[in-house]
């Protein structure tokens, strides 16, 4: 058994990493919960957002955290347009078509990025990237603490929008009862696009939180989305609270299994846990019965 001196920092760091996982999963679960499709373009869109954050810094000199203010609305509009004018018309109202269209989009976006920027891995250097906060028993990296705080704020805003605004209520109504929503005067095509936009906006924020300490190449987003899929299943498909708690939980699992099994095997723990969840609680830890 390891001493608390090693264990506590590992758990705290796990929570901090888990917050960004949770944000990526939040976008995925939101889209799944309302449109009832798995968005296969999620990883590619995250990669695109990371490139955007990278170049906004490189070309405009904008700090990634400030870039989030610019990129979040931009990606919301991009996601809205993608669903409304490309995915929905191409899918002809068939769910399985939407699945294939998002898969096709992923291929186009990834290869577009590869064509434009090559397979090179890029990083940006920021003076605060390696700064730490000393809590006495543990050092926490500043970018991770910032990321954690931002994710909590985003989750609170999202909660407020979903429970207190008419658009949020309309999203929840469409998620559970599409025909009833249509007959209440809710424009379902619009709500689908808003939801897709929100999911994409989550990715823009996640990208801006990742870029100070992470690299970007045309495949960079996929690693996060694989974990996000695990989180979405773990938390219960379509459950927003589940995605948040699941994300934090997965971060801790990864951190602890890295500690016990060695850093490079940290993700092993995630997938062992994933298999256990599928075996014993296939609806997820917080999900409703399917």
């Amino acid at each position: 058994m390891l001493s608390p001196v090693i264990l506590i920092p590992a758990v705290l760091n796990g929570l901090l990493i888990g917050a960004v996982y949770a944000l990526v999963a939040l976008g995925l679960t939101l889209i799944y919960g309302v449109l009832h499709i798995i968005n296969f373009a999620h990883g590619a869109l995250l990669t695109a957002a990371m490139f955007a954050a990278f170049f906004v810094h490189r070309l405009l000199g904008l700090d990634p955290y400030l870039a989030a203010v610019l990129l979040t609305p931009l990606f919301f509009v991009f996601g809205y347009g993608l669903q409304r004018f490309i995915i929905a018309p191409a899918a002809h109202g068939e769910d399985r078509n939407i699945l294939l269209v998002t898969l096709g989009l992923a291929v186009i976006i990834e290869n577009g990025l590869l064509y434009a920027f090559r397979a090179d891995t890029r990083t940006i250097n920021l003076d605060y990237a390696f700064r730490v906060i000393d809590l006495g028993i543990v050092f926490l990296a500043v970018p991770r603490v910032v990321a954690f705080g931002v994710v909590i704020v985003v989750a609170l805003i999202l909660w407020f929008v979903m429970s207190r605004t008419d658009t949020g209520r309309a999203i929840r109504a469409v998620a559970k009862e599409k025909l009833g929503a249509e007959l209440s005067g809710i424009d379902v095509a619009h709500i689908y696009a808003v939801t897709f936009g929100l999911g994409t906006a989550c990715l823009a924020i996640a990208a801006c939180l990742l870029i100070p300490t992470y690299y970007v190449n045309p495949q960079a987003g996929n690693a996060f989305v694989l974990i996000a899929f695990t989180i979405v299943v773990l938390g219960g498909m379509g459950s927003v609270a589940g995605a948040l708690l699941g994300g934090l939980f997965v971060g801790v699992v990864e951190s602890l299994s890295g500690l016990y099994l060695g850093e490079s095997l940290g993700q092993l723990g995630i997938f062992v846990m994933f298999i256990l969840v599928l075996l014993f609680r296939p609806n997820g830890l917080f999900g409703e019965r399917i």
Partner: protein
Amino acid sequence: MAEPVLAVSGLRTGYGATEILRGVDLAVNAGEIVAVLGSNGAGKSTLNRAISGVLRPWSGAIRFCDIDIGREKPATIVGRGLIQVPEGRRIFPNMTVRENLDLGAYRRARPRREDNRGRVFAIFPRLAERQSQRAGTLSGGEQQMLAIGRGLMAEPILLILDEPSLGLSPLLVEELFALIKRINAEGITLLLVEQNVAQSLEVAHRAYILENGAIVLQGNPTDIGNDPNLKRAYLGL
């Protein structure tokens, strides 16, 4: 004579290649309760889906307040004041009673939401008691009240009730039909689509009988109630 609130003429539609409605004509005048009666599979639900814009007409016209709504989206049609309370209630089970009602005023009458909610609670005191409860936990009768209440929140010009008595106990059915009269007395025009022939004919001003996708009989309730064919087909007399 004044233009009818709803005028359906020569309506044909269906699913895929299967034609369900084969030229339906009907009209609803302001202030009326009109009943459309028919057995399972007669095309009642298809008619409702077409009027509310969920299903596109193949041909024919649907006019509401003298506007052609045949090609409009459901949300636009709701905005015009044609509100449908769907079969099977279709309430939002994951949301509270109050949130369900508030969404009724999503497209229409939003500034008067508070007032209208008060009016709905006056009609359905049970909903007022349960306003913070999740709608999915309500009984069948309460869910039907909620669905009607949600419809009323939009200040309908024409309210379509699709099989409202389905699955309700006889006592609740009595209550429901009394309520239909009360809503009508407040100035709302009603189209009642029902299988419950006897009670529908009691409240309706006029009625249509739909069979195999076409109107086979229409007129005032007394004549229809005494029609020998109808008696044999629906009333089992």
